[in-house]
């Protein structure tokens, strides 16, 4: 029962052809990794005492916990390779700031920590066991939001969850990592989904995939087969189909109230990669130390879908992919519509890094903006049914009360408005400024 899709949205050039047929390649172990203490939404990790005491020179093994925080909304980080700690201190972070990180020089042996062992059969695990495993494995939303996964698996008692949705929409152009994961790791996705359904006592599982990935749809459908309580849902290809609220509406017809979380309507959403990570944590006992990402864009010489250890430097990955073209204008971590432009490649892969894009003037459209002609195309494409041009104008004029009245805080910054604007006005960018300012004033 495919529900009607959300209102609005855009159809950018998807540019997925150069990597969608490339199997995931495991990148050779990096020489060194940089592990930031914050790779998730929530409280940052504190370095564990055993590493802190020895400091530089401390020997670590793969999967050994490096940092943690007692706060509920947080996720520990682990050593992605075995080797020696060579530095502890602030390091470039994809978010554009410097954050405390542990640098590990590889010993090339890839020795796993002794405590890594399978957790047992899913049937023998209680919901609490599953939550604990997911938390200890440091699993966060791998689609890019990096919200700690165990938090979503621990809804308050008055908010029962009946549906778990696995997000395989991958609506961002260029990215094909989730597509490949669905083709190559479908069993693990389904196992992870079952584990989540068990943890939440949910009766239904849905796997949502955009219909521009017919092979992934087929693969998921084949493996779901006769499972009674799991179904695969084909979604119309339209950005931002993979946005939480849009995905929930398209697969179940339920509308998440403005300002609320999906659990309000009995739903928990997880990315396909997150499902795989949960499976690994249960079946092999492995914490989250690696992920699949897409390296692509016109500036990349050899595009690829790579499985890399977390903390691998982007510069090392670009080198592995044959370097980047001199015409590269933007180096983006994530997708082209919501990703973060980087000033250089000396930045590590973190848990939420779904792609690395080298965009040239073939991909990036640079233009001066001109006055708004009130064509209202931004209003037509906004998936949240907002008036981007009016909010942006209010923010530009410093009238943040009006911006808030126009529901600025409901904007989730998908960027459809800026994408479609014929006057090339940085609409979502102004709205971001407006949101920041509104929040600042609220917190005063």
């Amino acid at each position, binding site marked *: 029962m495919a529900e009607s899709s959300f*209102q609005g949205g*855009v159809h*950018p*050039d998807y540019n997925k052809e150069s990597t969608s047929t490339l199997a995931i390649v495991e990148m050779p172990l990096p020489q060194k990794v940089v592990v930031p203490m914050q790779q998730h939404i929530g409280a940052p990790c504190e370095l564990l005492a055993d590493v802190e005491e020895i400091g530089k020179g401390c020997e670590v093994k793969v999967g050994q916990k490096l940092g943690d925080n007692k706060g509920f909304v947080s996720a520990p980080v682990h050593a992605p390779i075995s080797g020696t700690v060579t530095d502890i201190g602030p390091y470039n972070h994809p978010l554009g700031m410097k954050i405390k990180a542990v640098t590990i020089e590889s010993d090339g042996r890839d020795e796993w920590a002794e405590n890594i062992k399978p957790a047992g059969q899913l049937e023998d695990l209680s919901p609490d066991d599953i939550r604990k495993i997911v938390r200890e494995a440091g699993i966060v939303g791998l689609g890019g939001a990096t919200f700690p996964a165990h938090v979503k698996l621990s809804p308050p008692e008055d908010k029962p969850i009946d549906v778990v949705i696995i997000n395989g929409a991958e609506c961002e152009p260029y990215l094909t990592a989730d597509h490949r994961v669905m083709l190559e790791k479908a069993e693990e996705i389904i196992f992870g989904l079952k584990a989540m359904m068990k943890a939440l006592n949910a009766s239904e599982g849905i796997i949502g995939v955009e219909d521009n990935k017919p092979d992934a749809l087929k693969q998921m459908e084949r493996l779901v087969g006769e499972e009674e309580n799991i179904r695969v849902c084909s979604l119309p290809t339209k950005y931002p189909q993979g946005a939480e*609220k849009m995905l929930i509406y398209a697969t179940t017809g*339920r*509308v*998440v*109230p*403005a300002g*609320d979380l999906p659990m309000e309507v009995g739903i928990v959403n997880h990315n396909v990669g997150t499902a795989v990570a949960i499976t690994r944590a249960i079946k092999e006992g492995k914490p989250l130390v690696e992920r699949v990402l897409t390296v692509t864009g016109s500036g990349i010489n050899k595009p690829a879908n790579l499985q890399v250890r977390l903390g691998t430097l982007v510069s090392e990955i*670009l080198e592995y992919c044959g370097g*980047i073209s*001199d015409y*590269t*204008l*933007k*180096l*983006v971590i*994530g997708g*082209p*519509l919501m*990703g973060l*432009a980087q*000033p*250089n*490649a000396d930045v590590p892969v973190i848990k939420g890094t779904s792609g690395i*894009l080298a965009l040239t003037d073939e*991909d*990036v*459209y*640079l*233009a001066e903006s*001109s*006055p708004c*002609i*009130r*064509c*209202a195309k931004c*209003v*037509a494409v906004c998936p*949240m*049914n*907002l*008036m981007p*041009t*009016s909010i942006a104008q209010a923010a530009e004029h410093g009238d943040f009360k009006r911006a808030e*009245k*126009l*529901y600025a805080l*409901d904007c989730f910054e998908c*960027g459809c408005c800026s*994408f479609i*604007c*014929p*006057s*090339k006005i*940085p609409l*979502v*960018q102004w709205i971001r400024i407006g949101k920041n300012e509104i929040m600042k004033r609220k917190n005063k």
Partner: protein
Amino acid sequence: MVINEKLIVSSSPHIRSVESVQSVMIDVLIALFPAALMAVLLFGYRALMTIIIAVVSAMLVEAVWRRKRDIFSDGSAAVTGLLLALTLPAAVPWWLVAAGSASAIIIGKQVFGGIGYNIFNPALVGRAILVVSWGAHMAGDIWPSPQPFAFGFDVATVTGATVLAAPEMAVTFSLPELFIGNIAGSLGETSALALLIGGVWLVYKGHIDYRIPGGFIGTVFVMGLLFGGGFYGNIFTTGLFHVFAGGVMIGAIFMATDFVTTPVTPAGRLIFGIGCGLITMLIRLWGTLPEGVTFAILLMNAVTPIIDNFTIPRQFGGVRKSA
């Protein structure tokens, strides 16, 4: 490894659609082509000259005002000039055409700050100024009757009243004639067919919202049906008469859908269209002027900000789920 030292760091999104103000304006010009072609087929070389003078003088005036060498620029001046030309009678003197274009660009648009800042539809401002300044050339019995495919005829020799000014004459034209446009009237307003072709294409391209022409034309039809007195056959055909006669089609499809001067909200656009239809019919049926499209749209332009303010759409999820 070489990393370009001039990487651009800016906040997302990093890709943009290729559509620009210029490409949208070119699409509008293309949409107006059938109507312009019909104008030339019906009214001959005078129509062609009027169109050329209006478009070129609009572009020139704008370029001079902005001190820019790029004559075509974003294309909006060409659209204004063409729209103005299509609302003029074929027999107007050529200096009047240029005066209309200059008024449209300067008073209609540039004094407000240029594209995006004007309150009133520039082409209609130009037309309104011509109507009140040189009424003898713009109203009365000066409307040339068309001579299809007679390119060289001098329109000035065959004039008459429009069907709106002289209802007793209207009944001599059949509905299909009204629809195709073989009647006296402004250059581009007579052929509903040609205008519809352009309108359908603009809706298909996503440039205009069907709500404005839908609300406008629907209201004119209903008002014509209810209050038109059934003089044109029966009440139903009288409703259609009011839709196809005069400037309703060009106004609804091309003037009331002008981006800058009309609401941006979906509900606001419907209200705007209905308002235009209502005022048009109030003027036609109970006013002293035979036609009311120009002033209907200009009046609605004035209340556009108010309409927008009262029709802010509810955000997704703004209504609590009932289940």
